[in-house]
């Protein structure tokens, strides 16, 4: 449509978005990368020190702890969430009275602010006042330190993440199940496939792409987990329960070690960019990009 495409009109149309995006997204990314190569504590001039911040992280036990916690949350969440949410989608696809209502209720946690989810789960997981230990006490089991102890916190964070995401993942699977071609399903039933065989050899293989999409979305969301840790333990005791992002927040804003904070931020960005690019490639194949 060449008639409406004078040069100044194009500038007016793309200008605001490009400027805002460049100033508040692109420039900050470059700035962070630059700062990750400096020593800077908030005053004076940043001193260029090359890759020393990255090398120092390699010797920082708290960094490795937070990386390990992130990986634990990632593995536990994905291994449990993908089958659970797929199973739930299969379950809710059956004709059950109140099915639509249940689908909406199960999705509910996805719209609650992560910070509020963290607060709510303090009252479930807290060793003294939490619901779980109260129930366990009722059947004579001594209290378990779900959060704030040495070991269990990342698993507890996974549980909360699973709770908040299961409806979201279920909804994507549900939508995928709805668009499976009717005739293929009918043909396999007519051929005498049992429910299990149909699931194993027809449904799951045909939904391979949906599985990949769900897994990738969940992985990128795990990398964003911050508020849960912030509310449940604040990363403590002594960083035992920090994730990469919460440790980055601590190093940057509490310790004001801006250089090494930005180095962690760059590492997180690279890790999640790898996953996001996978997602873009997949969605491009589905012609939405």
């Amino acid at each position, binding site marked *: 449509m060449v008639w409406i495409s004078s040069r100044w009109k194009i500038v007016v149309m793309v200008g605001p978005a490009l400027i805002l995006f460049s100033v508040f*997204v692109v420039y*900050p990314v470059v700035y962070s990368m630059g*700062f990750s190569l400096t020593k800077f504590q908030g005053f004076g001039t940043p001193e260029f020190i090359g890759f020393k911040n990255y090398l120092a992280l390699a010797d920082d036990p708290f960094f490795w702890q937070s990386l390990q916690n992130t990986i634990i949350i990632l593995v536990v969440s994905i291994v449990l969430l993908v089958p659970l949410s797929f199973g739930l989608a299969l379950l809710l696809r059956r*004709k059950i009275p109140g099915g639509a209502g249940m689908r909406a*209720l199960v999705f509910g946690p996805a719209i609650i602010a992560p910070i*509020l989810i963290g607060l709510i789960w303090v009252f479930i997981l807290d060793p003294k006042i939490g619901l779980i230990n109260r129930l366990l006490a009722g059947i004579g089991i001594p209290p378990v330190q779900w959060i704030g102890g040495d070991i269990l916190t990342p698993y507890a964070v996974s549980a909360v993440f699973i709770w908040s995401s299961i409806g*979201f993942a279920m909804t994507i699977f549900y939508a995928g199940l709805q668009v499976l071609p009717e005739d293929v399903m009918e043909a396999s039933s007519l051929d005498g496939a049992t429910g299990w065989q149909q699931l194993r050899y027809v449904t799951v293989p045909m939904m391979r792409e949906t599985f990949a999409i769900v897994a990738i979305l969940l992985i990128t969301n795990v990398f964003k987990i911050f508020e849960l840790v912030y509310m449940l333990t604040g990363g403590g005791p002594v960083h035992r329960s920090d994730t990469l992002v919460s440790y980055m927040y601590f190093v940057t804003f509490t310790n004001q070690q801006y250089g090494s904070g930005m180095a962690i931020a760059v590492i997180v960005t690279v890790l999640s960019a790898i996953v996001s690019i996978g997602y873009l490639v997949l969605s491009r194949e*589905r012609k939405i990009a």
Partner: protein
Amino acid sequence: MTGTRSFSGTRLVAAAAAYLVTFLILLPLLWIVLLSLQPSGNILSNPFSFDSLTLQNYVNAITSLPLLQMYGNTILIALVSVTVGAAVSFMAAFAFTRMVFRRKRVQSSMRLYVLAGLAVPVYILLFPVYRLDLALGVFGTYAALILPYIAVSIPFNTLLLTGFLREFPAELEEAAIIDGAGLWRLCWSVVLPLMRPVIATILIFNVVYVFNEFPFASILINNPQMVTVSLAVSRFQGQFTVDYGGMMASATLVLLPQLIIYAIFQRQVIAGLTVGAVKG
């Protein structure tokens, strides 16, 4: 006959399982509401009792929380950032798909440049944006938060809008141009009305994001008068310390409006939050 019976049998098991799972997912929320209704003496000793439920915690919460201010701030920030974010993204998406650039490669590289933003996690932006807000002199104003919220919404908005426009034939627009419509009239009276569904999706997605956002708000707002809802929630533990009833009543007061709005716009919200994954 056995066939029918086992059929209804599995159906019963499936229904029971579905109700159980739904109940388990709702359990944490029910627990919060129950605690919020307990008199303070009961919370530690006898939280499961239904004997002496009271609204006293809500009275305490309403008197000690600046609810109007929290919601006022959040709604103001959401309204401005979401509207402006959608508007600038729409203009860019229109240019990327409909306008004729002298060099086509400039057009497609601009589009990819913006879409690359999808891969940027907000955490890498926190500190630089804080410095940027200081340098631009907007720190301490609503713009400190509004500007980055607009910026981070642009890539996803552009993805959805260009996706929609590319699938949509331009014939109607060409007809409008022949009838003498200028660029402004074309966008406002022809293209935008056609795009209502995708615009609604974008608005919902971004409103939910801004309402729930915490990392930016925690760093870019230092004025107690300007706290957002998320920021206020993050301070409940310090504010109420051991007044668990008050804390839970406050949590319920934040949760309830969200759930009511969700109940009303359920279908649109679910579509809005899963659109990137299920469309295509």
